[in-house]
Every structure is written in C-alpha cells, then in structure tokens.
C-alpha cells in the first residue's frame, strides 16, 4: 500500500496520485481536508505498528510500503483555522503523530521530515552542498554595513535573500539600498556574489535525473515582474558527471526526491544554489512533459 498525504488540489500530489493510478498501485490517500475525521493509533518499541483510519477506510501502518508526503500545516487549513482551540490542537497532534511515524517507519518515505529540514537554514545547506564538491556562490552573513560594502566591492555585483525556509524574492543590491544598510544591525542578512549564467533546474527522483533550462532575465525567475521576464522552460541534458553529482548530493541529504537549482556560467562553470526537498516539480514538468511524476511513482512502487 502506498500512502499519499496532502491536499488533493496540490499539483504534485495530484500528479503523483495519477501516476500511481496509471500503474494500478494500491493507494491510500490521506486527504488533509479530512484531518478532523482521521484517527491514528501508533505503537512504538523496537518496531512501529498502528492503524490509520479515515472515514470508512483504514490501513494498518505495517502494510504501508512507501509514502509521498506534501502536507500543509493542518492548523492553517480552512477546516481547522476557525475551529475551537482544542480542535486545532487535535489536528496539530495528528500531524505530529504522522510525522513521527514517517521518521520511524521502514517504508520508503519521500521525503522524511528530518531530511527536509536542511532547507530551513540555507547557509547551512549551502555548506553541505559545498562539502559535496559543488561550487557555491561566496556568501556573507552579517549585521555590519562595512562588511557588506567590502563584500560588494570584492564581487562587483551581489544579491540578498532570506536564510530560513520562509520564501523571499532574491534581489540585487543597488546603490539605493545603502540608505537601508543601517537596518542590517536588526538582523543578520545573507548576501551572495551574483553568478551570471543560465539557470538549470534538476529534479532527482531516486536514480533518475531530469534537467530543464529556465530562461529568464529576472533576478529571481519565480517572481517575474512582467511578461518579458516570465521563465521559458526547455528540457536539457546535463553533462554525465554532473548528473551523477546531483544524485549523490540528493542522497547525501537523505532525499529521494529533490529539486536542485544550478547555474552554468558563460565560462561553463556550474554553481549550485539550493536544494528543494519538496519540489513543486509540476511547475517545470507540465511545460515540457517531463515524466517526473512517473519517476516518483516508480520510486514509491519500488520499481
């Protein structure tokens, strides 16, 4: 039995469910919108046992051979957000119990929450990426305006972005920012040398690697300011050695499924910026018909 946990209209969840159906795999879909009607019994010693009940259906946890997880925080779901405190607490308790199971089960979990946590500290993840032999942009985290000025002088062009898992728009530092440098003292801020080149998004699903070129003149292609900056996605091939390194990187982070952000400079140097442990791969795959959903389904099915 393969467990899929998430909300039905989330595109990667829908794509993986559809791919599993095409393979006629047995699927237990744990719809988060039903969290208040779902029950879980979990029993742990040297083994992990229990039962998951949802409406008329139930599944013994021991029968789950693989799981694809893309849950939201249940307390933010509309069913729970306006509910009494004790209801929200129960939903949070359910999430926690499920996440606990996903850490302990011997089933393949795509991906375990503990592995996904590297994305909560981007500078630390960058250090891990560098340790795997990738070039990474030189990065400075500081509360000191003079340090930023020196870093900027050294690199010519620099950007700033968030360090945590909270999404932010990558922005280029311009002379106008100098008026805000005094605010740096309020919180350490992450600056990076600007790396020119073309963006390549790589998805690793087990042993399978998919790459696509993302053309955009935007600093952060996820947030184009106009139609001209909208990303143009095209399938591409990675040099063989780089594909192997991407697989190794994902494995080193404990990720069966990963979205890896690379950039190839005009000189042909490859830089790695970040690894997304819960990639919304459909954003890329739907445009160029890359069968990443099928690869995830194969991974879950053990094939």
């Amino acid at each position, binding site marked *: 039995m393969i467990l899929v946990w998430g909300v039905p209209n989330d595109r990667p969840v829908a794509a993986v469910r559809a791919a599993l159906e095409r393979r006629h795999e047995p699927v237990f879909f744990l719809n988060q919108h039903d969290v208040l009607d779902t029950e879980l019994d979990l*029993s742990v*010693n040297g083994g992990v046992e229990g039962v998951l009940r949802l409406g008329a259906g139930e599944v013994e946890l021991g029968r789950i051979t693989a799981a694809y997880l893309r849950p939201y925080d249940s307390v933010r779901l509309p069913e729970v957000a306006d509910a009494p405190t004790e209801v929200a607490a129960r939903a949070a308790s359910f999430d*926690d119990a499920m996440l606990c199971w996903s850490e302990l089960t011997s089933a393949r979990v795509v991906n375990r929450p503990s592995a996904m*946590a590297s994305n909560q500290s981007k500078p*630390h993840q960058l250090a891990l990426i560098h340790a795997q032999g990738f070039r990474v942009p*030189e990065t400075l*985290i*500081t509360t000191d305006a003079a340090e930023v000025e020196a870093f900027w002088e050294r690199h010519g062009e620099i950007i700033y972005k968030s*360090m945590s*898992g909270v999404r932010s728009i990558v922005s280029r530092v311009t002379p106008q920012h100098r008026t805000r440098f005094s605010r740096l003292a309020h919180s350490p801020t992450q600056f990076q040398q600007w790396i020119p080149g073309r963006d390549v998004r790589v998805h690793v699903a087990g042993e399978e690697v998919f790459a696509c070129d993302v053309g955009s003149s935007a600093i952060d292609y996820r947030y184009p300011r106009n139609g001209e900056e909208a990303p143009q996605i095209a399938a591409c091939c990675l040099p063989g050695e780089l594909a192997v390194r991407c697989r190794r990187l994902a494995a080193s982070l404990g990720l069966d499924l990963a979205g890896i952000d690379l950039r190839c400079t005009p000189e042909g140097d490859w830089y790695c910026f970040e690894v997304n442990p819960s990639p919304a791969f459909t954003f890329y795959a739907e445009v160029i018909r890359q069968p990443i959903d099928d690869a995830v389904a194969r991974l879950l099915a053990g094939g």
Partner: protein
Amino acid sequence: MIVVVASSYDAHARSIVAHWESGGAAMLRAEDLCRPGWSVSVPRTGRGAAVIGGRIVKLDQISGILTLRPGIFAPELRAIRADDRAYVAAELTAFLLEWLMAMAQSCPVLNRPSLSCLAGPNWRLEQWIHAAARLGVPVRTRCRQVRKDCSPHTEEQAIEIISVGERCFGCDDSRSQSWTRRLAAAAGTDLLCTRFSLTDGELLSAHPWPRLTDPDVLAAVRERLGSER
C-alpha cells in the same frame, strides 16, 4: 571563552553563566544577534566574528559552547516590530544553526545542533524509545492515539539519569547508566536525560535537554566544554 546560547529570559541559563563567569563565560542572546559585528562566510573560512554578551568576539577566542535553546522564538524579539518577529525569529534560527555547525568543527558544542533543533536531536519520545529498543535497552512500549476522546497520560515513578559524555549522574544503577551512554552515543548527543521505570527498569523517556541544576553535572559540562582560550 565559554559561550552559553540561551534566552535572556532564561534565569537558569543566567545562573550558569554567573557560576562560570570567572572562567570567562558569556551568554549569546537573541539580542546579540541583532547587533553590528557579526560576520560569517560560506564556504566556511574559519574566520569571522560574533557578538557575545554585547561584545564583538573573534571565533578563535571561543573554547566551547553550551546550547540551551532549540530555536529563537518570536515573542522574545521585543525590539523587532511585531509583524516582523516571526520572520526574524526564523532567520536568526537559520543563521545560528550554520554558525553552531561551523563552530562544532573547531570547539566542543553541547549539544551539537541538528537540522531542526539548535540543541541536539529534535526527536520525539517515540524516536528515543525506538532507538533504545534497537540498542537492546528494555523499553516501555509507547502508544499514541489521536482520537476525538484521548485518555489522559499518567506519570509513573522513575529514576532519572543525566549523562554528560561518558559520565552519568542521578542514579548509581550501572545497567541504566550503560544504556543511557549507549543511547546518547547512538543519538550523537553529549547531554542526555533518561527516565527508567522503578517497577521494571524499562526506559520510559529520554530527551537531550537535562536541567543543569546539580553542581556535579554542571562541573562535568564545564569540563567537557574545554579549557579557557
């Protein structure tokens, strides 16, 4: 210098720093993260500067770090605009994680952070029980039910053991001490607190955040953090 990473609202952490002050201990508070002077690089260079107890400190002046907080929490950031506190708390936690991980390469960090906690593994009780059982430690099976009508949890009488590296405190039972050390080693944590049933000796719970109130425990922690630089 020994650095104690803690909240300025943590009275116990303040007392530890006061106890060690003659040996050059200082507290790294959230307020210190919001002062000019920090400089951290990736890739790691081993150079840089930190702000500890309001003073700018070179990294090679730090001989050991005791972490007493799992993360930075928004409510303590009173100097930050209320709407921004959650974001800044996440940023500060992300920053501290990399700083502590980098420092762990050059000095003892108790407990070394994990990806989801600044002070040791962020395991749930079930994960400790599971790890202990796999090491051969007798455990009390942990049952968790998430239902509309959950029964209340009852406390059982237990002995408590605190391990600091190889040393154990709290109870002289050598078997329980040995199990505690093995579990701490398996979890990769220097500090661990375990509770074993008085009735049958089974492991009831474990966590890597022992209360450091016993002077002997505190002395062992200080010793493990190394000599003054």
